[in-house]
């Protein structure tokens, strides 16, 4: 057996050894759930095809969605674990491509910490088969959400800031806008009823349905909210806090100490999410671990801790974390603990080839 084949076999054995159900979702999947979950940004990465009715299908672009969807369809609630290895398909700039991915999904586990530890251990074991001692980058979604809840600002700004977390440029633009908020005197606003009338008139005039999409009431409401928001400044100290926090990035212990210092300066209670991150560090002992306060996938179902492992070439070899809101987004009645990761097998193989 060649070395490459031997490593494959070892990886396959690792996937089997997770005490999990081996999942083999179909290669051809309905595309709609992917668009619904991740929007057009992910949609542009799909390899699409249509059936005779025009319904869109895609070649399996990941394992998580079909695994979780099937789990929900079977009736949720029971702890379950799934592992997988097989091809996925994503558009790349230089043409469509087929990749192999391996990974695990741990659902409804009683202890989210233990589950994340298993995920991290799996990812590191997979990488070590290929001789890679990774750089690990951690991100704290729960930490940021906890900071955001406590930071002093008008409530309406919180979801707007949360929504941009993980998109560095968009968040930077929003903060810059808030920092530059003009101190102009607002002119007298028309009443809500007047606004609704004006908007209704305009919508009718251009033939828009008053109920299908945004309603006059919603538009007037957001208009007034916007005016109020422009007047309701986020305090400069809060903006500085957010800037300072998002800039924290470096070796994990130093970075978390910085977060703690920032928290105590601003009297924020961030102990619990910081401890949650620290609990996982022992298990990562000899790896180079960094914490990046601004790091998060751009999907709002991530919660808790997220991570990325990169090799010497700087390529992401494994990524994952906790996504307790995913099952709810896919139709479960309540949030269900979920964590998992996926490992890019082809990139790992490229790490060992001469």
């Amino acid at each position, binding site marked *: 057996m060649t070395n490459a084949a031997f490593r494959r076999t070892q990886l396959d054995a690792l996937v089997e050894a997770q005490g999990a159900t081996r999942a083999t979702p179909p290669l051809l999947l309905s595309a709609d759930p992917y668009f*619904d979950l991740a929007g057009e940004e992910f949609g542009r990465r799909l390899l699409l095809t249509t059936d005779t009715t025009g319904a869109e299908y895609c070649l399996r672009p990941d394992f998580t969605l079909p695994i979780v969807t099937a789990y929900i369809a079977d009736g949720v609630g029971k702890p379950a674990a799934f592992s997988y290895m097989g091809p996925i398909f994503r558009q790349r700039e230089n043409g469509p491509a087929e990749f192999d991915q391996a990974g695990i999904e741990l659902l409804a586990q009683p202890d989210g910490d233990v589950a994340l530890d298993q995920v991290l251990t799996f990812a590191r074991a997979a990488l070590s088969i290929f001789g890679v001692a990774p750089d690990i980058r951690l991100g704290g979604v729960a930490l940021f959400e906890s900071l955001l809840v406590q930071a002093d600002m008008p409530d309406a700004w919180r979801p707007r800031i949360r929504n941009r977390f993980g998109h560095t440029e*968009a968040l930077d633009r929003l903060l810059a806008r808030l920092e530059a908020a003009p101190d102009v005197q607002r002119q007298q606003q028309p009443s809500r009823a007047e606004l609704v009338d004006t908007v209704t008139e305009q*919508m009718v005039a251009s033939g828009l349905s008053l109920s299908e999409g945004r309603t006059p009431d919603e538009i007037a409401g957001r208009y007034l909210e916007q005016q109020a928001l422009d007047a309701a400044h986020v305090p400069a100290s809060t903006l500085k806090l957010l800037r300072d926090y998002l800039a924290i990035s470096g070796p994990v212990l130093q970075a978390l100490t910085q977060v703690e210092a920032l928290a105590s300066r601003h009297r924020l209670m961030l102990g619990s999410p910081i401890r949650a991150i620290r609990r996982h560090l022992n298990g990562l002992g000899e790896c180079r671990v960094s914490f990046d306060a601004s790091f998060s996938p751009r999907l709002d179902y991530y919660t808790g801790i997220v991570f990325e492992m990169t090799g010497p070439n700087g390529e992401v070899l494994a990524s994952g974390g906790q996504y307790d809101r995913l099952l709810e987004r896919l139709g479960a009645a309540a949030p269900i603990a979920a964590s998992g990761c996926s490992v890019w097998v082809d990139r790992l193989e490229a790490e060992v080839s001469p």
Partner: protein
Amino acid sequence: MSGITLAVPSKGRLEELTRDWFASKGLTITRPGGARSYLGAIDGMPEITVRFFPASEIARELIRGNIDLGVTGLDLIHETSESGPASVSVASKLGFGNADVVVAVPEAWIDVTHMHDLADVASDFRSRHGRWMRIATKYITVTRQHFAKAGIAEYRTVESLGATEAAPASGVADIVVDITTTGSTLAANGLRVLEDGVMLQSEACLIVSRTAAFAPQRKAQLDAVLSRLGTTAGF
């Protein structure tokens, strides 16, 4: 293989203006078979084969490297493929066919004046209406790229190959991404361009393929014709 292929829009105002532009540089494009023929030539330059194509096919073939040189809109280069702009080189802007690809919302959306407003509306559209915000456009690639840059992921595109400006009124979509010269068609349909809603300023361009194989002899031929046109390939 030797000789250079030049692709020119096959009909209408764009063809006329393109031939005028070449004529202004002293090169006469001939179409011996008339409007039904898709093969032409340039007087005095036998190494150049002129092909008449629809503008969108010119963009596609330039990106793939099947033709060397062509006249088409910048918008089509950006729309045909995400790697389009990197696969070609703009040798010259021709000063006609100017139009902007813009984001336009219903006039009645008085609360939405900038892309960041749209980001807010998009982010809770689904929880309010049980579906994603829908954008009608024929510029799907351009839309995806620019919305990603603006940090907006929560929407669906609806492909619209004509009369995009009518999509909001017909209930097909909530907003549009469309091409416009003056904005008057959009305005007539009760749509307003966002203040930072210009995604791409397009015009007709003379474009060189970077993916076509230019052996020394063909490169020399290319450089020769470009220099007659007062420009260079840029590579």
